[in-house]
């Protein structure tokens, strides 16, 4: 018989109780403290780790739902009982909640995996399956980690994300401060780098690549950029709407990635949703050694890189914007255009455009001469002596038309600029056209292909753009302004594509309402119809024209933002020669733009051959006088690395734009011919 049970039996035997009485006092004295100790330990266990009581520590709704979904019971007396009927202790709860949440996440991911494997993949989801995916995401959104929410946010519009992100628990399972981004290393492929100066280790301070669903993350290892050389901080203009508390205050320079992260929760007004984007990521752990602000004089001004990030992007409600417009310093015409944008702009672009207006408060004028060489609108940047930037958007009210009659049949209509600065930059004389003069007197007005046109004595005309078309042009310029301020115009092609697509979708909304496209001028109408009926050709047309020498927006060597990232990686290896070559190529491209403009004027018959030759010589002389600045290896590396954030943001925004366009076409039934 086991000792314990014999002892117990012995003790319980009444006859043996008396055994204890005559027991020597020494033994009793030794046994009593031990018994007391055991009792005390048991009592201490109960006190130190009591049973969980919801009256003392109530659950949030999310936690309560999670427990009840897993068959845990919360009793009226406050205790929590597991499926086996055992009450839970306080020490069990954190681990339990984490485990249940993890299991819920896993379940959701498995459901999504099954759904995506059943269909053609994440990129080719039909509408029904996309809705199913969104349903699963909505149900499990609070349980997802921050990185998962960032990955799946591409399925939702900003408006849909707002309520989802509002319901997140304040101390979600991951504390942003403890989050550590994976370290990615910009691994050199060739011989060792040309410089041996101290380089800060790639700190995982910047957020991970922002990738929406349609675009796979580039599998290119990139080092986290060192803090870029920052231009002087721009004091944001005062705004009647929810301006950040520290607006206009020059902050001490810190690493740009930390500045971006830190700006997010503080600046957003209470209750406002902060849509997930590269500039609204949670604060990253501070860099261990924030680099000093190095003087920007080492790089020529044309290579000034990202300025300090402005206020973060946020969704602006229509009522808010209407209130802002009432007091905004804009004319009636401009306010009408902004109102149209607020009402009709596509969702993926609306927040960007309105934030650019409210935060940047650009001067918006209707003046074709200030629009320069742009046909419909131009974004102008002025920088004062202290480095503060201000922006002007010059809208053209209508084109200057010049018709050149062909030898036998018909005539060719040319569009010209009436800006004296354009012609002086080309070293060519200002065209001798009545319509180009500011004080020119029109003979008559008549409706034509280019709107209501004023016709002058020499046959030149001044057309006029419709309000809907101008709203689209203004939207485009506002988005380019946002790209410049937020730093993702590093890929000029991505910025242009984003802006052009938003403009086209705005026109599509007008087209669906008005049932015609007569509000567009002939050039935009042809582009719009091609987008409508042959979208693939339209996209290819954009690529070929944006990469032309005249525009130079798409650098054929670099391609889109993803391939530009790879280009930068290869260029980083061969510093500083790569930056010198890139700089030369950029200068040559700028020179090419002007040469081709002069050539176009000659082809139109507005220049003689001799004048064209003189203009070319003068342009060449201009560029020869541009002195190449010395480029150090360190500044070269910084330059290439500093573009990474902007390129990743551009890539993510293009993916968002792609999804938005797909969705718009499906919903509006605009899926025309593929090619």
């Amino acid at each position, binding site marked *: 018989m086991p000792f314990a049970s014999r002892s117990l039996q012995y003790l319980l035997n009444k006859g043996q109780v008396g055994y204890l009485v005559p027991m020597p006092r020494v033994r009793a004295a030794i046994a009593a403290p031990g018994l007391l100790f055991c009792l005390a330990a048991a009592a201490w266990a109960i006190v130190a780790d009591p049973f969980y009581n919801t009256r003392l520590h109530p659950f949030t709704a999310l936690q309560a739902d999670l427990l009840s979904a897993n068959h845990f019971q919360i009793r009226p007396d406050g205790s929590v009982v597991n499926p086996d009927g055992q009450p839970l202790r306080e020490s069990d709860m954190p681990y339990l909640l984490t485990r249940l949440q993890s299991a819920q996440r896993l379940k959701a991911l498995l459901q999504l995996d099954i759904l995506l494997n059943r269909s*053609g993949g994440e990129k080719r989801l*039909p509408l029904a399956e996309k809705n199913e995916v969104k349903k699963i995401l909505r149900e499990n959104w609070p349980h997802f980690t921050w990185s998962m929410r960032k990955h799946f946010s591409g399925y939702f519009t900003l408006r849909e994300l707002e309520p989802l992100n509002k319901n997140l628990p304040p101390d979600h399972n991951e504390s942003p401060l403890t989050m550590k981004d994976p370290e990615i290393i910009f691994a050199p492929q060739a011989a060792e780098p040309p410089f041996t100066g101290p380089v800060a280790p790639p700190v995982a301070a910047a957020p991970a690549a922002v990738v929406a669903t349609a675009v796979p993350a580039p599998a290119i290892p990139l080092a986290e950029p060192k803090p870029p050389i920052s231009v002087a901080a721009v004091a944001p203009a005062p705004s009647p709407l929810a301006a950040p508390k520290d607006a206009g205050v020059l902050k001490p320079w810190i690493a740009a990635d930390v500045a971006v992260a830190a700006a997010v929760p503080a600046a957003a007004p209470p209750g406002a949703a902060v849509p997930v984007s590269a500039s609204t990521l949670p604060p990253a752990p501070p860099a261990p050694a924030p680099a000093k602000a190095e003087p920007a004089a080492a790089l020529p001004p044309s290579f000034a890189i990202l300025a300090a990030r402005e206020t973060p992007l946020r969704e602006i409600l229509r009522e808010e914007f209407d209130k802002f417009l009432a007091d905004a310093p804009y004319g009636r015409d401009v306010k009408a255009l902004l109102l149209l944008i607020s009402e009709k702009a596509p969702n993926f672009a609306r927040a960007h455009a309105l934030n650019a207006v409210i935060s940047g408060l650009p001067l918006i004028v209707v003046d074709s001469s200030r629009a320069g060489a*742009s046909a419909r609108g131009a974004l102008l940047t002025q920088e004062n002596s202290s480095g503060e930037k201000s922006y002007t958007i010059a809208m053209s009210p209508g084109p200057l038309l010049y018709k050149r009659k062909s030898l036998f049949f018909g005539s060719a209509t040319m569009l010209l600029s009436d800006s004296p600065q354009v012609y002086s930059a080309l070293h060519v004389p200002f065209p001798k056209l009545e319509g180009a003069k500011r004080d020119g007197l029109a003979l008559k007005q008549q409706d034509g292909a280019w709107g209501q046109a004023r016709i002058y004595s020499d046959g030149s005309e001044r057309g006029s753009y419709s309000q809907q078309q101008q709203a689209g042009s203004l939207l485009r310029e506002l988005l380019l302004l946002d790209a410049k301020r937020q730093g993702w115009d590093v890929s000029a092609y991505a910025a242009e594509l984003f802006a052009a697509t938003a403009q086209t979708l705005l026109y599509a909304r007008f087209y669906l309402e008005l049932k015609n496209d007569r509000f567009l001028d002939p050039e935009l109408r042809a582009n719009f119809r091609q987008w409508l009926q042959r979208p693939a050709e339209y*996209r290819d047309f954009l690529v*070929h024209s944006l990469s032309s020498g005249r525009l130079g927006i798409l650098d054929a060597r670099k391609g889109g933002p993803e391939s530009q990232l790879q280009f930068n990686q290869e260029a980083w290896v061969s510093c500083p020669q790569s930056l010198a070559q890139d700089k030369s190529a950029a200068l040559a491209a700028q020179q090419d733009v002007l*040469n081709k403009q002069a050539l176009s004027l000659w082809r139109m018959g507005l220049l003689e051959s001799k004048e064209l030759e003189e203009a070319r010589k003068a342009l060449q002389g201009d560029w020869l006088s541009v002195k190449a600045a010395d480029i150090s290896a360190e500044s070269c590396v910084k330059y290439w690395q500093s573009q990474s954030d902007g390129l990743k943001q551009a890539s993510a925004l293009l993916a968002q734009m*792609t999804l938005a366009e797909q969705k718009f076409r499906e919903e509006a039934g605009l899926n025309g011919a593929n090619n």
Partner: protein
Amino acid sequence: MPIIKIISIAALLWGARPARAQEEAKASRYAPPTRSFYCDVPSGWHAFEEEDALGNVVHLLGPDSPSGNYRTGIDIRWVEKSQPGFRPVAKAIDEMRGSDPMTERTATGARPMRISGILSRTFEIQETRRLAPDSLPSLEEELHHYVAVIPSGESYYVIRLSSTRDVYLDYRKLFVDFLRSFKTANFR
């Protein structure tokens, strides 16, 4: 004497050989990250892949046009059955060849051609567009497109070489050579 003739002929052939080798060495073999096809990229051209609302497309950008308003290039687009707005290949070809009075768009007849072992269709399109878009000065220019449609099951590739019309003849041979070098991923 016959020996001299043989030697001179051999010398002529030997002289031509480096030029041919140089020509052949100019093009570089390219496959996009998706590895869906292989092709020869002409020397001096740049390739990149991107994804738009219609799917994956590879752009090969070549030299600028004489006017500087339009860059010659080849666009290779994969049109998959599951994509939104998909059209069967025959209907897609008819729609591509459709005319448009606004842009003076016209097309030639579709001709058969064997590409990558597959019976494909080629045709040419001309149209007039205002260039450079949204920039001044601008005037209308004629564009020319060589188009090849290569079926692959119910899906298909669309390969288009676009240029301004004043130089389109310079790229005819290049387009044919490019099509000959084009191999789909499952080509055997």
